[in-house]
């Protein structure tokens, strides 16, 4: 098991490198001069040259690439052009919010999606099944920001239960944090519920048709035991895939949710960086993002290993 995890950790490194390289390519090798893009068409030649030098754009490309990787290896994400603060500081203060939103959305997605999918699978082709299928399809069709707006309209404006604008709240004030987290998490969770319910349904259906479930029935086992012990563990494998797959989607959506609810978070930072043309901040944030993606993929792989013993022997 330990060997398996170690191997996964190791193989994550080349993937990380590849993703960072693509990032580098996208940010550097674009038509036009990034310095001009930042300063605008009316900038003077000296201003452009100065900025280029400051950003290291006047060095040859391979040197830039080398410096880029070196910088990351040292844990330096650059400094924001707008505030002059190290990017890492900005990230540290906002990352917890994005993380808690993402984790909460996943938990909601699984907590509601799994039972709905299981219900649909065990009551195949009945009203329950159809309702569950249409419902989950509807759920994942909602744009995240629309759900957020609807929730605000209903619960904040009409009913006044929740604040319209969330605030950054100290880590220790758990109650307040949860309160501020509720609506955003629900609005993002809805999409996850849709995906997880569908994945659960199809994966449980597939497992129900497997020979070993027939063997379990032949042993005269209680149906609940069959579902819990024999079916669920096998069904979880595709569900883990789905969660891992849509984690990227969740992070993208967190951008939207954070804007609507005015929550602090990485997503909001990205958008601010974009609108202020804070090139270095944007680059730093994207690097954090790349790490996150690779981490998630690795965790998904490890989760497979935990669930399915056949994977471990690789």
């Amino acid at each position, binding site marked *: 098991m330990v060997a398996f995890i170690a191997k996964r950790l190791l193989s994550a490194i080349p*993937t990380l490198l*590849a*993703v960072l390289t*693509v990032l580098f390519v*996208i*940010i550097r090798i*674009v*038509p036009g001069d*990034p310095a001009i*893009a930042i300063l605008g068409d009316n900038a003077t030649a000296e201003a452009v040259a100065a900025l280029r030098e400051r950003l290291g754009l006047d060095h040859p490309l391979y040197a830039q690439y080398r410096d880029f990787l070196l910088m990351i290896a040292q844990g330096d994400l650059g400094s924001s052009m707008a505030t002059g603060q190290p990017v890492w500081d900005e990230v540290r203060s906002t990352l917890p919010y994005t993380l808690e939103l993402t984790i909460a959305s996943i938990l909601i997605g699984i907590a509601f999606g799994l039972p709905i999918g299981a219900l649909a699978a065990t009551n195949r082709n009945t009203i329950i099944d159809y309702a569950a*299928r*249409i419902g989950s*399809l*509807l759920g*994942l*069709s*909602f*744009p*995240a*920001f*629309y759900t957020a*707006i*609807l929730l*605000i*309209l209903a619960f904040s*404006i009409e009913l006044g239960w929740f604040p319209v604008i969330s605030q950054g709240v100290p880590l220790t004030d758990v109650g307040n944090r949860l309160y501020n987290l509720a609506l955003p998490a629900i609005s993002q969770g809805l999409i996850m519920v849709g995906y997880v319910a569908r994945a659960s349904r199809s994966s449980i259906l597939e497992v129900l*048709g497997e020979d070993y479930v027939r063997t379990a029935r032949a042993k005269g086992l209680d149906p609940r035991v069959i579902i819990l012990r024999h079916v669920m563990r096998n069904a979880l494998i595709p569900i883990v895939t789905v969660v891992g797959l849509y984690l*990227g*989607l969740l*992070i*993208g*959506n967190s*951008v*939207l949710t954070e*804007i*609507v609810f005015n929550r602090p978070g990485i997503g909001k930072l*990205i*958008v601010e960086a*974009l*609108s202020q043309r804070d090139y270095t901040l*944007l680059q730093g944030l*994207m690097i954090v*993002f*790349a790490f996150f*993606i*690779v981490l998630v*993929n690795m965790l998904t792989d490890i989760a497979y290993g935990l669930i399915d013993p056949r994977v471990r022997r690789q």
Partner: protein
Amino acid sequence: MTEASVSLAAAAAPARRRGAIGTIVAAFNANKTAWLGLAVFLAIALAAALAPWLAPFDPIEQHIADAMTSPNATYWLGTDTFGRDLLSRILWGARISIVIGVASMAAGVIVGSALGLMAGYWGGRIEQLIMRSMDVLLSFPTLIMGLLVVAMLGPSMVNLIVAMALTMVPKFARVARAPTIAIKERDYIEACRALGYSDLRIMFVHILPNVIGDILVLASLWTATAIRIEASLSFIGLGVKPPTATWGGIIREGFDNIMDAPWISLYAGLAVLLTVFALNLLGDGLRDAVDPRLRGE
């Protein structure tokens, strides 16, 4: 399945032969929700195409005196902060969304399937190269990729289409590659090779039809996603620039005035929801039609 049930299933099916496409069409016919999805989407697309004639007002024209009125007889869905008719703006916004959605999907399908077919058929180094690049592209969620590209290249319809196509290419490549690998070893492909058919001909004339079903499923589902992402990008402010009406842009304006004019965000959002849902229904129905396992039961 036991032998007994397999022969049962085979015996129960009609003895008439149908081509691969025929079976898909037949199964699709039976699925009412799929038809509903297709119908709704086509209706929306039609309305978008006919927007210049259907829209009661010019979407950019401002009627300041009537600004921020809730839905009434003149302005069926109300007006926004500048007094522009919401219905007209939504109709015109549909054009942007649908064009971007369909175009990026088409680009993704064409490039992605071609890459997938080539990777699957030629194998070896080429396959490794193609699939590794696809894996890297796959790491980027569509929204983030859209953000990046638009930030770097500027917001315009073409850039948006490119950004989203980039995230779709790897998905279609994957879907096209797997069956290609399975099919290329079959006897009739051997026969084609023996007849001296060129690789390209074999790939696109003989292997492609077998892959089409899965591709169609993904195509509808991803068009839905593309439309949703376009709305998201416009919402953030990275879509096509105002005063052009985009669904996301309208929702954003509506959000800024959520207390006073909730109908703006409400109806524009509903338009997005409806379109995306219709396409998802369609894709789902296609998936059920294409997957032989789901059909047999």
